[in-house]
């Protein structure tokens, strides 16, 4: 409990509270604009975090991460365009409500379900920390270098398997990301890898340069060359406070959906999409009126919003407990940990337990702040939907420069970021996923580091899997691969 109070104490400073406020409100606005997601905002903000305190940086990014999906529900419900991709299912029942003239009801339900989902996973995380905190400290002994290597390998396999229709592309881009991370001088043996005698390449590519290029600049280019959307005018009448009353009528759906979000968030590489599918299907299966799903069913909306908002807090678990990010946003947050000199991993329970509490309590504050902001200013936020896309593209390009240049004062960084941006643009045009590149950069580096660090204990190939955790994870990896292969063969047979 001492760490808990220390965690609260860490948050009680003006810069941290201001960062929480800016992150939450900024994330809401970013989520409400179709075209920019939290990944782009975090990519742009990352370099700024170098100049900020560790906790300030992290709560700022957490604010954006935790609140963007709340904001994404606004255009999903009002104009049938999800603000962030994970709000796609919200359009099913949310927009149907708007067409019936119940936009305010839809928004109220979305806010209450999102708030419930978010708080559910945060409270589970906090309870686990309080109840099992003393035991979690022993995790450090349980997880060695080889175990974390195996956990990162499992994350990789899950990430690739999750791209069911484009497994080859996901594997290709993951490997490309990992290879980009390998460029430069290997510190252990002083061997230059793919440097070709170019001075710039000796320290390797900066992670932020690649992330800003792939996510922010590519999105700017995509918006600049596209057309301005002409969304229909949304009318909003009625109060937004009655959502909790309606949520109380569907406790089972809310609990199941938040539970799915929490579980899927913990598993690396799975995330919001799978959580939504599972919770939406379950909600429809247990509903007394499944025919109403997709036609403005309140339980459908609850299932979608409660599950996707339960993910952010849960997604912090593999990042903090194992140092293995499960998706792009937590991979970007990993950069802040690198800069701060904090090593996320099992040892964090021993060395920085108060820091963990601070993060989860900050997430709770973010959820409350976001709810209050939404109830007070939805009408204002709804106007953000109409900001022209191409104008946004122009300003993302301007912001990207600050992001890249400020890292090392290097114009070459800016040129490479432009190159990665162009690559990302082509990937976006072809509908190839961007996330595997970033996770390849981060997870690839983690795997190499852990394998190198644990190499002194590897005498034979069996030493890689002879520890309880590593062995279990290896079996899970084999299981995931077998399951993916079998389902793919079955799908192909069915299609033919």
């Amino acid at each position, binding site marked *: 409990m001492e760490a808990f109070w220390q965690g609260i104490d860490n948050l009680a400073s003006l810069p941290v509270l201001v960062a929480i406020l800016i992150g939450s409100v900024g994330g809401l606005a970013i989520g409400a604009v179709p075209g920019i997601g939290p990944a782009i905002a975090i990519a742009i903000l990352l370099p700024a975090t170098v100049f900020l305190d560790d906790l300030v940086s992290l709560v700022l990014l957490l604010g954006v991460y935790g609140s963007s999906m709340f904001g994404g529900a606004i255009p999903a419900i009002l104009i049938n365009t999800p603000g962030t991709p994970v709000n*796609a299912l919200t359009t099913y029942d949310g927009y149907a409500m708007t067409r019936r003239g119940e936009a305010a009801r839809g928004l109220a339900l979305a806010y209450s379900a999102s708030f419930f989902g978010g708080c559910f996973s945060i409270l589970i995380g906090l309870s686990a920390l309080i109840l099992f905190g003393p035991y979690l400290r022993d995790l450090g002994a349980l997880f060695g270098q080889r175990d974390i290597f195996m956990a990162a390998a499992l994350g990789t396999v899950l990430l690739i398997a999750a791209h069911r229709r484009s497994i080859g592309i996901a594997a290709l881009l993951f490997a490309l990301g990992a290879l980009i991370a390998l460029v430069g001088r290997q510190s252990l043996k002083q061997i*230059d890898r793919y440097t*070709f005698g170019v001075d710039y390449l000796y320290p390797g590519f900066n992670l932020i340069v690649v992330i800003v290029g792939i996510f922010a600049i590519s999105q700017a280019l995509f918006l600049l060359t596209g057309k301005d959307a002409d969304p229909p005018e949304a009318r909003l009448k009625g109060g937004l406070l009655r959502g909790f009353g309606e949520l109380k009528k569907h406790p089972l759906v809310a609990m199941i959906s938040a539970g799915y979000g929490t579980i899927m968030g913990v598993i690396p590489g799975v995330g919001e999409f799978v959580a939504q599918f599972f919770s939406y299907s379950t909600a429809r299966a247990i509903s007394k009126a499944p025919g109403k799903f997709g036609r403005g069913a309140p339980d459908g909306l609850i299932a979608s919003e409660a599950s996707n908002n339960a993910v952010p807090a849960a997604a912090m678990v593999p990042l903090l407990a194992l140092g293995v990010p499960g998706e792009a946003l937590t991979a970007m947050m990993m950069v802040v940990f690198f800069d701060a000199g904090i090593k996320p991993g099992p040892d964090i329970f021993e060395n920085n337990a108060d820091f963990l509490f601070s993060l989860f309590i900050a997430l709770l504050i973010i959820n409350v702040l976001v709810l209050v902001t939404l109830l007070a200013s939805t009408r204002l936020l709804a106007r953000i939907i109409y900001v022209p896309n191409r*104008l946004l593209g122009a300003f993302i390009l301007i912001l990207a420069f600050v992001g890249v240049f400020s890292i090392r004062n290097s114009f070459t960084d800016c040129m490479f970021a432009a190159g990665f941006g162009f690559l990302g643009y082509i990937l976006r045009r072809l509908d190839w996923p961007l996330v595997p590149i970033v996770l390849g950069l981060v997870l690839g580096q983690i795997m190499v580091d852990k394998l190198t660090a644990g190499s002194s204990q590897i005498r034979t190939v069996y030493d890689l899997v002879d520890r309880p955790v590593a062995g279990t994870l290896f079996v899970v990896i084999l299981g995931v691969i077998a399951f993916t292969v079998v389902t793919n063969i079955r799908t192909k047979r069915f299609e033919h």
Partner: protein
Amino acid sequence: MKVAPPPPALKSATTSTPLRVRTNTAPLTSTCPPEDKIDLRDVTDFRRGRGDLIFSLFMVAVAAFFLIFFFTQTGWEDRKLPANMAKYWMDQFGITDPDTRPARLGRILKQGWVAPMAVLCILVPAALWNLRSAVRAYRWRARFRLSNDARYELRQWVRTLEFVGWFVAYTLLVPVLGYLVSTMLLGTALPWRLGYRGTRWMRICAATSFAIVLVFRTGLQIRTPVNIWLYDQLPQGLSTFLKVWF
């Protein structure tokens, strides 16, 4: 001199009365509401379009590039491996009994070329597998007479280079004119180029650009180029002020 009268203009097909279908039937109406629901398959599904084959070929070239330079750019030349690798691996997996104490696997894994080789073991097959899928999709499109013409896609890619150029120009302009002036310039010129013209748009864009400078440079003190040509031309006091805050 008598000038021959001009020949009568040829009546082309295009000048004739256009074909109009007149019908007395009532316009088609439907009682079904428009289906404007987002199809979730669109979000999660993946379909290869035009340009995919070209980019897949490019990715094979990238994989081949890394593979070719693996032998000279990863420390492979200085590798330290057991003399008989086949026997070593059989010993490792317990298929055969080692004659002498085998070299520690960890010692091999530590070498610089191991990680690139492991990654290439995924990259090269994945690139080839992806190319195969791209070729199959290309043939499928051709079979169903869907357009495979990638010129439109390529034009889009080339068109984007204009905005990459804007970004590069901005990057080069900052050390000359300073962060404030360059940002204001790009923040108004690029929207102008995009068609957001008129006083209202320009005011909005200038204000937004100024706000970006205020937040990032003045507020957060994020690093921007220091040696600015324009600032050096100004009086000492103003120059220092601008260098510190803008």
